[in-house]
């Protein structure tokens, strides 16, 4: 899947690019609006990750250009401005998602994956991990071929962890993804532990190996390795 990343801050650009490439995306990068405009003109991308505040203008104008040319690409705005106006304007113009800096890289990955699922495959793509199969459109999970029933939170947890498989996900990253950004400064993330425990119980109860590993009390990794 081809991604165009428009970000003027070199270190940030490199970091995002490295992470996404490790997630098997093909990532092109540019650092200003003019180059971005040329790139989207010359090539077709599946997803465009655009910063709003760029040295030569506002990233929103690129979204306007994409919509004028009826581009099929999904658009994710990344912005340092936590402004409701910006968010509304961006989404009104046709952006699919809006992420506020600083964000966690696994979160960006999850957003891109979710967007790709919604766009390209009309949600019918299934995710397979070991003996697990997820049908995102139906929010259905199967172990082997047996459907298991999960609460929406447990489902969101599992989907997020499969999207970022083999990666250490800290409790904060998971909590922010599943419960929203206002939960991240909750003094205790104990509630996360409860949900993970229930999820593991349900999975192992259906004969699924214990893929979810706790790591140093920091967070969890979903992995098929022992």
């Amino acid at each position: 899947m081809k991604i165009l990343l428009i970000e003027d801050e070199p270190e940030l650009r490199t970091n995002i690019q490295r992470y996404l490439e490790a997630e098997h995306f093909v990532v092109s990068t540019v650092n200003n609006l003019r180059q971005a405009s040329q790139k989207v003109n010359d090539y077709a991308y599946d997803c465009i990750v655009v910063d709003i505040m760029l040295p030569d203008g506002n990233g929103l104008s690129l979204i306007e250009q994409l919509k004028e040319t009826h581009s099929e690409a999904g658009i994710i705005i990344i912005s340092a401005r936590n402004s409701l106006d910006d968010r509304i304007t961006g989404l009104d113009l046709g952006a699919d998602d809006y992420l506020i800096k600083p964000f966690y890289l696994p979160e960006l990955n999850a957003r891109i994956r979710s967007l790709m699922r919604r766009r390209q495959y009309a949600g019918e793509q299934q995710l397979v991990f070991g003996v697990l199969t997820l049908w995102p459109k139906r929010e259905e999970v199967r172990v082997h071929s047996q459907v298991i029933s999960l609460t929406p939170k447990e489902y969101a947890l599992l989907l997020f962890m499969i999207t970022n498989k083999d990666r250490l996900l800290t409790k904060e990253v998971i909590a922010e993804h599943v419960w929203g950004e206002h939960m991240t400064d909750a003094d205790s993330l104990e509630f996360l532990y409860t949900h993970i425990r229930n999820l593991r119980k349900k999975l192992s109860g259906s004969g699924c190996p214990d893929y979810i590993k706790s790591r140093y009390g920091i967070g969890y990794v979903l992995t098929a390795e022992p």
Partner: protein
Amino acid sequence: MKLIHKTTRYLAVVTIPIALAGAVLLYYLIHQVINKEIDELLSSELKQVQENLDRHPPGTGGLLNWDHNLQITPARVADSQPPVFTDTTLLDPIENKVVSVRMLRAVYPVGKDYYAIRLHQPYLEFQEIAQYLSIGIVLCFIALFAILLFIGTLLFRRVLQPFYTIIERLSQYRIDQHAAITFPASDVDEFRLLGQSITEMTQQAAYRYSQQKQFTDTTSHELQTPLSILSTDLDLLQQSAGLTEADSQRIHRSQRTIKRLSSMNQSLLLLTKIDNQQFLQVEPVDLGNLIGVLLDTFSDYAASKHMTFERSDQQKPVVVINRQLAFILLSNLIRNAIRHGRPASSIGIASGAHYYAIRNQGEPLPFPSEKLFQRFVRNPALPQSTGLGLAIVKEIADQSGLRVDHTYSASAGEHTFTITFQPAQG
């Protein structure tokens, strides 16, 4: 009170005493003039009577009283005195009623005899004239006052039209909208100057407003970008193979610290934005509804501390407020209650027509209560707290015309936050 009413009131306060005093004075003057005329009349009649007495000296036997207004009686010398005018009443023999009259008494010598002459003249018509005159004058005065008022009001409206336009435009002006304020041209210098001054003032305010707004945006960008670099660096570092447990935990701690810095930065910017009135859009907000949404969001958090919510807010007041700010206000208060509440206790939510109260059980404040809403005042036992949540609550309350109070009941070990407001009309 409107300007026109104020002016009219002053006008009335000044003119009515003058008019009353004038009417009294006028009545008195008319009386004086009438008296003088009657006295002159009586004097000339006296002269005629005296001439008649000289010409036809009456015999001692017959004193002719020509008419009932004149009486001549013989008098002794001792009674001799200068003519005297008096006011008195007499019985009018013709109309058979008591009338007030002006009387002239004099003693007049004819030869060696003396005659007392008494002349009187009823006031009757003169009094009527005086009355009619007075009534006429009072009526004229009232009419004059009414006309003055009417013309004054018309003039006032016309002359002050630009003034009212200025007021109307000003009340519609909103600093967060880009349209500049304009006023109609006026040929009155004062209004033209007023319009000019206000235009300049609002232009300056709008400029400062946009500067401030740009500042918060830029600050946000400048601070969040380095934090983003740090955060992504750590994300990548954390995925490296061969990290020891201690390394991983150090990285994790750094990530948490970055998050704390970022949320502190967001909170400070939010405070600045509220200060700068960047949330002017208001709408009627159903607080009960909003609380329902928030309790749902926080339910897992509360459940992890085995806390329950007790809602007794039957009244669901609607408040005109910025929706975003209302959300932040209530979310901060509820999160505060969960964070500082004793585990396994309950959080009470009650409401009335003019208030919303959120209470939680917990330890007394570790600092003086007057510091509660100050910035960076926090419970040192909770390292992730920024100490800005309640400062934001206070700022939102102040900007939105609400009042927020905190009370602690030592006996029940219970904190209560009360938001007091004016409910929306209709």
